[in-house]
């Protein structure tokens, strides 16, 4: 399965100008940066099962407009260390460690999906970290689909519990399945059905590693979609209402995007902080910043203009 074809290009994609790492209580998190190192800082936090290089098109657009864009890989994702334990609060703490290592002054924070949801938690407890916050489809409102009854919800939780424990029992034997660039991109497509194959193949070359058997995603194989725990969407909305910095939320209205959080404008609007702004696109999927990079970059830059 070894391939000699190990590179892909994608229009507008640009490797980071600088790389480094952050220490979070002994765990090494990989850091990527684009733009002028002296420019004001805008930090980007990726979503679950993504990694910071998924910003390879979007980040350079922001950097080109005069920002120092910084992004790190979450624990177990991308080039960051794999951890023994994972959890929402540990990710939030890692974000704090990263932000504090980057700047002692408030910076602009942008989070996509799970990264946006985690920044909501962080900024409720640590509002002084941010001078503005942009949340890209990371505002949960109906985690449990309304047509799922209690019995079905319990059945799903139970199945998730068993598979999670089984996976942890086998964690020392788990590896990511090797494949070709094309094969790995095809396997990712169901999570990203609206993104082009060309983009997904590019992602393989920056988010997977190559060995004698082929390409494997770098993400820790013990991690799986779903997870379990008592978390519920309303808790995140409480954090949203408590924010005090300038806020821009951007929602995808595409209801059949498998990774989307499917929040509607009317779900979120009542919880907007004072002066908060909410944009809704019913024709752009969950990965707004990839599917419509320039449109979303222009929106973010326009929102940030008064803060320059």
């Amino acid at each position, binding site marked *: 399965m070894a391939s000699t074809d190990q590179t892909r290009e994608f229009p507008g994609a640009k490797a980071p100008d600088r790389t480094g790492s952050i220490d979070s209580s002994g765990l090494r998190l990989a850091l990527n940066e684009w733009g002028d190192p002296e420019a004001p800082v805008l930090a980007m936090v990726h979503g679950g099962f993504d990694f910071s290089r998924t910003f390879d098109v979007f980040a350079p657009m922001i950097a080109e407009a005069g920002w120092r864009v910084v992004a790190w890989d979450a624990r177990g994702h991308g080039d960051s260390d794999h951890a023994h334990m994972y959890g929402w609060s540990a990710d939030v*703490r890692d974000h*704090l460690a990263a932000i504090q290592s980057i700047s002692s002054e408030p910076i602009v924070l942008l989070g996509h999906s799970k990264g946006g949801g985690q920044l909501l938690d962080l900024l409720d*407890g640590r509002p002084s970290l941010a001078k503005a916050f942009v949340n890209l489809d990371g505002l949960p409102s109906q985690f449990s689909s309304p047509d799922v009854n209690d019995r079905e919800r319990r059945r799903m939780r139970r199945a998730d519990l068993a598979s999670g424990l089984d996976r942890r029992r086998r964690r020392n034997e788990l590896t990511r399945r090797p494949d070709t660039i094309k094969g790995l991109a095809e396997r990712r497509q169901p999570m990203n059905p609206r993104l082009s194959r060309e983009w997904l193949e590019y992602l393989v070359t920056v988010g997977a590693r190559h060995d004698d058997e082929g390409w494997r995603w770098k993400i820790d194989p013990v991690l799986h979609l779903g997870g379990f*725990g*008592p978390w519920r969407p309303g*808790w995140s909305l409480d954090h949203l209402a408590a924010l005090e910095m300038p806020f821009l939320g951007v929602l995808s209205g595409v209801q059949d995007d498998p990774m989307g959080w499917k929040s509607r404008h009317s779900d979120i609007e009542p919880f907007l902080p004072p002066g908060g702004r909410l944009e809704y696109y019913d024709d752009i999927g969950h990965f707004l910043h990839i599917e419509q990079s320039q449109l979303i970059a222009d929106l973010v830059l326009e929102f940030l203009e008064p803060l320059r």
Partner: protein
Amino acid sequence: MTRSTEFLLNGSLRLALHTLAEGEGRPLLLLHGLGEQSPMSRPAWTSAWNGPVLALDFTGHGESDVPVSGGYTPEGLMSDVDAVLAERGPVTIVGRGFGAWVGLLIAGARTSLVQGVVLFDGSGVVGGGSQPPTPYVNVLPASGTTKPDPYALLELSRDPRPPDYALDYVRFVLEDSEIENPIVVSARIRPEWLAAVAADIGVIELPLEQAIASFA
């Protein structure tokens, strides 16, 4: 007897499993409270149990290893107990405080391997309450080998425990168990999650020694 200790692997970390009493048949597994560790000898309240008495040190506690940079969740620590189940087969659990919460979770997740669970008072029984507590995010210095791990104390004292979430696990146990009363509450402290569990029609309340005797 002086306790003996074996080490089980959970990923790359070692878990200390202590034998406090030898015996034949299904073991009684003791789960300690938050920040505690397993007792050095068999507690008197286990006297009704004729089989082996085991005690597990949770990750970051007692003689078990400390992970790098925390990440503790009660759901994650279910895998500590699951490592014992994989090694020793079916057990009956007595959980103290935080161990009671994990005991209920693992009883619901591994219904064929946890044959009865007793929920008892102890450190960490409350957790973060029914709703998430006031946000508090802090980065601690790398803890190395400090025990109990400061991250365990921070993260496991703030985890939300909604009553309806606890009752999901009660349902899992009751739907599968072949024991007449598989969940017994012996705790006197009743945070909302435990009050809801105790009020469930399938759950009974007994003093600790009687509770253990009911599973012997």
